[in-house]
């Protein structure tokens, strides 16, 4: 029997790394990137970097940001993370207009379609709601109180989404479950009526998004998972409409032999403004994969793989606006052990064709072609230039971090007995 003493992930002194995140204003007026505790925003309308102002008791974030999101109307930007704070920013004044304390670390956020409520989920499975009504004078409000609306029992909630018609709130967890709950008239009283569960994934569910289709006002739900599949669901009945296996196609574009077996877990997904494309970030894929959704046939199929040539870029987060056909991606990490840099990030964008015609190809934009150009990249990436090897190490560190967070640890019978050694009833024996 091997070494039962030390196990991976048992070391409490391991530096916890967080992936870089990106969010795009629904009308592409600004782009936000979160790297570690740093929230960086670039204003595309004014073509200048944004200086956020926070006058609350605990200004800005003091630990890794785990979720950033714009509200559907674009008036609000929400950020939350390991410092147990949820911050609501006005996108007009760039002031922090609300700061909410959470008991546990926050893993996911969502904004109701009317912009009146902000929901956030903690690592123990509780989803909270807080009112985000702006103060008339646009001043910072005192610390708000959140109310719990629903909970997944002791499971990390990885994604929160409101359905396009605002009728449902969907929450996904690491126990393979997706729960669809009816949004009540007054969310602060709690969302008790479960519409359905979308069950079928065989690993943690990592990301959710809705396809906006005029035939389906509730929207078609798309989910990505650690089981390397993307699934399409009917959110009213919970029935699985289609499953797309990513593993096979991603094999062709896998990284060159770094790991024993390449992992095709879905890291992030994003439905695109053309209404039928879905962009995926897959672990081990140096680029993005595009899926095509046929809303009438209710099917998913792999359309294209867009590889990022010339550099090692495994995206950690994807973002898109509702109007412009540009898919933004970021790769990055908060802190990397063994490297001097405090944080690193790299932003790229892909121009997507309007309709999914055969001739229209997605185009990877060069640094000078990206909206905001060099100034945007300087602001969002920071001024450090990073080598390929650093990004590869970062990708590995993030993969390990995600695994240890979301995948249940499997212990052999001997290891389980060893781990029980401190239990009182065990101590009495022998």
């Amino acid at each position, binding site marked *: 029997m091997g070494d039962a003493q030390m196990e991976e992930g048992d070391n409490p002194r391991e530096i916890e790394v967080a992936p870089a995140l990106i969010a795009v204003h629904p009308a592409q007026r600004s782009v936000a990137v979160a790297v570690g505790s740093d929230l960086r925003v670039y204003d595309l309308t004014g073509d200048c970097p944004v200086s956020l102002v926070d006058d609350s008791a605990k200004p800005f974030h003091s630990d890794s940001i785990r979720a950033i999101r714009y509200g559907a109307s674009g008036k609000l930007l929400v950020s939350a993370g390991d410092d147990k704070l949820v911050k609501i920013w006005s996108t007009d004044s760039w002031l922090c207009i609300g700061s909410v304390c959470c008991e546990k670390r926050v893993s996911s956020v969502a904004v109701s379609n009317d912009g009146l409520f902000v929901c956030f989920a903690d690592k123990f499975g509780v989803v909270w709601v807080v009112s985000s009504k702006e103060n008339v004078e646009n001043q910072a409000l005192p610390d708000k109180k959140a109310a719990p609306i629903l909970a997944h029992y002791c499971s990390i909630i990885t994604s929160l989404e409101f359905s396009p018609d605002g009728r449902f709130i969907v929450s996904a967890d690491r126990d393979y*479950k997706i729960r669809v709950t009816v949004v009540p008239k007054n969310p602060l009283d709690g969302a008790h009526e479960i519409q359905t569960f979308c*069950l079928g994934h065989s690993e943690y569910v990592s990301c959710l998004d809705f396809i906006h289709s005029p035939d389906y006002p509730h929207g078609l739900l798309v989910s990505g998972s650690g089981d390397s599949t993307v699934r399409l669901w009917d959110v009213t009945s919970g029935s699985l409409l289609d499953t797309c296996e990513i593993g096979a196609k991603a094999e062709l574009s896998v990284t060159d032999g770094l790991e024993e077996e390449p992992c095709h877990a879905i890291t992030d997904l994003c439905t695109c403004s053309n209404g039928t494309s879905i962009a995926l970030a897959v672990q081990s894929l140096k680029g993005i994969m595009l899926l095509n959704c046929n809303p009438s046939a209710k099917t998913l199929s792999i359309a294209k793989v867009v590889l990022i040539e010339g550099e090692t870029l495994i995206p950690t987060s994807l973002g898109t606006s509702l109007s412009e056909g540009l898919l933004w991606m970021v790769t990055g990490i908060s802190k990397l052990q063994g490297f001097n840099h405090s944080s690193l990030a790299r932003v790229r964008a892909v121009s997507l064709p309007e309709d999914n015609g055969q001739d229209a190809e997605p185009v990877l934009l060069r640094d000078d072609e990206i909206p905001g150009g060099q100034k945007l990249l300087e602001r969002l990436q920071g001024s450090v230039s990073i080598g390929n090897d650093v990004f590869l190490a970062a990708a590995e560190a993030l993969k390990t971090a995600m695994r240890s967070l979301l995948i249940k640890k499997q212990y052999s019978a001997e290891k389980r007995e060893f781990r029980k050694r401190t239990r009182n009833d065990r101590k009495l024996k022998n």
Partner: protein
Amino acid sequence: MIEKETTSTFNKSTGLPRKRFYRARAHSNPLSDSHFPVPLSPSQFDYSLHYPQLFPASSDDDNPKRIQFADIGCGFGGLLVALSTLFPDKLMIGMEIRDKVTEYVKERISALRTTNPSQYQNISVVRTNSMKYIPNYFEKGQLMKMFFLFPDPHFKEKNHRRRVISPHLLDEYAYTLAVGGIIYTITDVEELGEWMKGCLENHPMFEALTEEELENDPVVKLLTSATEEGQKVARNGGQTFQAIYRRIAPSL
């Protein structure tokens, strides 16, 4: 340990398993992710495994019957055994997180089926964490009765979130119960009794049964008399606290 003939795990005269060989700690950590198979969705739950006489073939879609009663934390199976003959045409299941105790109930049901042909075919047990996986076993509105008999009180306030009846978990039980379905809870711990009653009272999808309805329900008496835990409380002259509620449609 020397193996003697008298240390057989089954009682030779009744054919039933002997409890002392299936003793386990009373508590099991509901937060731990133990390794038992969980169906990916209710349609994947194999009825032929649990009710072989009623569901002969493995992929038999002919029998439309589904489980309608669930005993959450069924312990040694006392309630299931009592309900089986009271409702012979209903399918029931016990959910228990402790390994050894689940084994005991399996053996008990198996022995009862052997000594009483064509009886006890409608009950079974499954080892699972019902606080996490109930939606994996039951479709929306599938159950007519759910039982929570003498659940772990988790006295410390920091452990209250481990209680099997809580405002959040009631959402899931409301989802699993059909409108009109009934949830039965009982405990001998007064504080827990008040807690459970409070949770149910404050939940918009449950309403209390009237005194008259309670008197007319034959199941209510079984809560105290059918289980080992209930019998122990009666022996010690303890008091029990019930909260029995009906699942209603939420008011708009």
